[in-house]
């Protein structure tokens, strides 16, 4: 054995009760589960996991790390949150196959939909691929995390139809060409196809996949069926009726072509609880028919961010504020805040919402002087300054010339009991993290830690064993990811070792680590001790990331 994990408590990913056992790893696979003595060591490296859970590595099925993988093969900070396999290429957008003439088009779409800055591409990416195979070869050179990449439907259309992809349905010949191209992607390592019925491009026009006919999607699903690959769909998640129709459409595709389908995201807000109940009833009915239609539900609640340069509907019930933001430019808004009389009128109107202002968190500032305040609540900042949260919000906005960004936390998908029940549902896949996307708005990392801290420990909505199963073996089985997702002899040794009482997501913060001096929101992990990928140590709490390129295309 090359490596032994001693004294740990194994939660093997099947949902079975945890048990005490040592794990032996030979090459990159689990070779032994049970008690091991000193005489079994034979010079193997030993990890002491006493008091810790030894779990299969977590799988994140909905990410947009496509670009980041070109400059960061670890997809940081995914691994430190216990994630050992990611699925990029969701929502009809991958980085291949991509002809040279469409590169800037794709950069625009990634910027619009995933908030990946243009400069990240211009300074962090060497465009040395066109085919899916070439892209895979490119990222494989320095891969620490495992990647199960999707091919994006919009990319297939662009490759085959050029600019017509954004204007019309495909001819039968073009559909055939897309099917051949999808087949090439699958042979090169694509785990399936992603498409979107929702997203808009940088011109605020529908992305190419939205121009596809039902016949086109049917033909592509036929290719997926021949290879037992998955179809990921962004459905009209804001509308119950359309979602129900998409579930039915996906069910028919699933049954006809014997494919697994997944739709994401599914949110549960106070206003749509009835709609979500209808959606889950339809999912259950279609699953009972034998269709495979998996809704993805995220663990984290939705926060609302705003600054005073852009009108936010948070102020819609404050007519003076809303009119100020809606009908005035930046200098006029600053002038209003600086005018004692107008400021007094504004503060009087906003007094009734003081609990909201107090709970707001300062997200982003431009000045060095206020940088240390980022992450604090306005109540705390107000107390430090000898004023209240509302005055602090106005003062900070003035000091930053309206460049201060504020966050109202937990504004949606935040009924913990109801969300916990949904996450526990046997026909729900836990996912939709959007890892690597929306980098300038919020952190898309740490959903796995939040699953344990909120829904296992706080709410007791899921047992620890079930929570692990949902983000390991269940995900692997749904996505057709072989020999991963369980602690099992013969399986690949993707393993996460964590403290069951401490695992959580850390505080969100802004960091400048995107190529082109770009920023993004990230979170550190709490309670993750060590992460093994293919039997190699990829991350440890004490030593951080290793440089071992241990990941692979799965």
């Amino acid at each position, binding site marked *: 054995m090359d490596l032994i994990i001693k004294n740990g408590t194994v939660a093997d990913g099947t949902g079975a009760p945890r048990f005490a056992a040592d794990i032996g790893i030979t090459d990159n696979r689990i070779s032994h589960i049970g008690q091991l003595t000193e005489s079994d060591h034979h010079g193997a490296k030993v990890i002491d996991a006493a008091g810790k859970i030894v779990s299969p590595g977590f799988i994140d099925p909905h990410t947009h790390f496509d670009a980041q993988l070109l400059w960061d093969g670890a997809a940081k900070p995914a691994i430190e949150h216990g994630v050992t396999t990611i699925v990029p290429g969701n929502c009809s957008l991958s980085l291949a196959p991509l002809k040279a003439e469409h590169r800037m088009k794709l950069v625009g779409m990634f910027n619009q939909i995933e908030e990946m800055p243009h400069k990240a591409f211009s300074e962090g990416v060497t465009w040395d691929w066109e085919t899916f195979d070439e892209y895979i070869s490119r990222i494989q050179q320095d891969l620490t995390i495992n990647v199960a990449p999707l091919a994006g439907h919009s990319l297939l259309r662009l490759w085959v139809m050029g600019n017509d992809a954004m204007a019309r349905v495909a001819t039968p010949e073009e559909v055939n060409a897309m099917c051949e191209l999808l087949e090439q992607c699958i042979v090169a390592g694509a785990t399936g196809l992603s498409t979107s019925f929702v997203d808009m491009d940088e011109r605020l026009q529908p992305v190419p996949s939205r121009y596809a006919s039902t016949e086109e999607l049917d033909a592509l699903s036929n290719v997926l069926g021949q290879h037992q690959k998955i179809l990921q769909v962004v459905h009209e998640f804001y509308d119950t009726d359309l979602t129900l129709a998409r579930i039915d459409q996906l069910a028919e595709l699933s049954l006809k072509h014997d494919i697994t389908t997944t739709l994401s995201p599914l949110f549960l807000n106070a*206003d*749509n609880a009835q709609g979500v109940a209808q959606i889950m009833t339809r999912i259950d009915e279609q699953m009972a028919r034998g269709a495979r239609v998996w809704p993805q539900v995220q663990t984290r609640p939705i926060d609302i961010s705003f600054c005073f340069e852009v009108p936010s509907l948070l102020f819609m019930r404050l007519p003076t504020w809303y009119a100020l933001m809606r009908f005035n430019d930046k200098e006029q808004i600053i002038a209003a805040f600086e005018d004692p009389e107008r400021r007094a009128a504004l503060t009087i109107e906003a007094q009734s919402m003081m609990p909201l202002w107090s709970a707001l968190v300062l997200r982003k500032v431009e000045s060095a002087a206020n940088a240390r305040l980022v992450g604090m609540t306005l109540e705390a900042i107000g107390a430090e300054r000898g004023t209240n949260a509302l005055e602090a919000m106005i003062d900070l906005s003035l000091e930053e010339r309206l460049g201060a960004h504020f966050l109202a936390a937990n504004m949606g998908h935040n009924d913990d009991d109801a969300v916990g029940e949904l996450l526990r549902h046997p026909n729900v896949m836990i996912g939709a993290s959007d890892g690597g996307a929306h980098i300038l708005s*919020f952190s898309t990392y740490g959903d796995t830690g939040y699953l344990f801290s909120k829904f296992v420990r706080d709410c007791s909505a899921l047992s620890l064993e079930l929570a692990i199963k949902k983000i390991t073996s269940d995900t692997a089985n749904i996505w057709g990811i072989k020999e991963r997702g369980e602690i099992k002899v013969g399986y690949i040794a993707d393993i996460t070792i964590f403290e069951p009482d401490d695992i959580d997501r850390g505080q969100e913060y802004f960091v400048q680590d995107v190529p082109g001096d770009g920023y993004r929101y990230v979170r550190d992990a709490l309670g993750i001790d060590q992460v093994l990928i293919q039997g190699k140590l990829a991350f440890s709490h004490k030593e951080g990331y290793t440089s071992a390129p241990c990941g692979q295309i799965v």
Partner: protein
Amino acid sequence: MTAVISHVHLNAAHEGIAELIVTLTFENGGQSQVPLDPNTSSILMSRCQASDWSELIGQDWTQIRDALTESFNTSSTG
């Protein structure tokens, strides 16, 4: 068949912005929800001469259609 706005409330959208959810009630009692981004919501408020979103209740569905059209056109033309 026509429809009127019967309920309005704020929602946290996927992208982390506040959006307005408008419920339309049809003559036959059927209901449908329409999410509106901040710009479209503002245009709708202006079109309906509403100073509070509660004043949108009772407005005809065509106001939403026209607000969406105006929002799309102004966004598309920059």
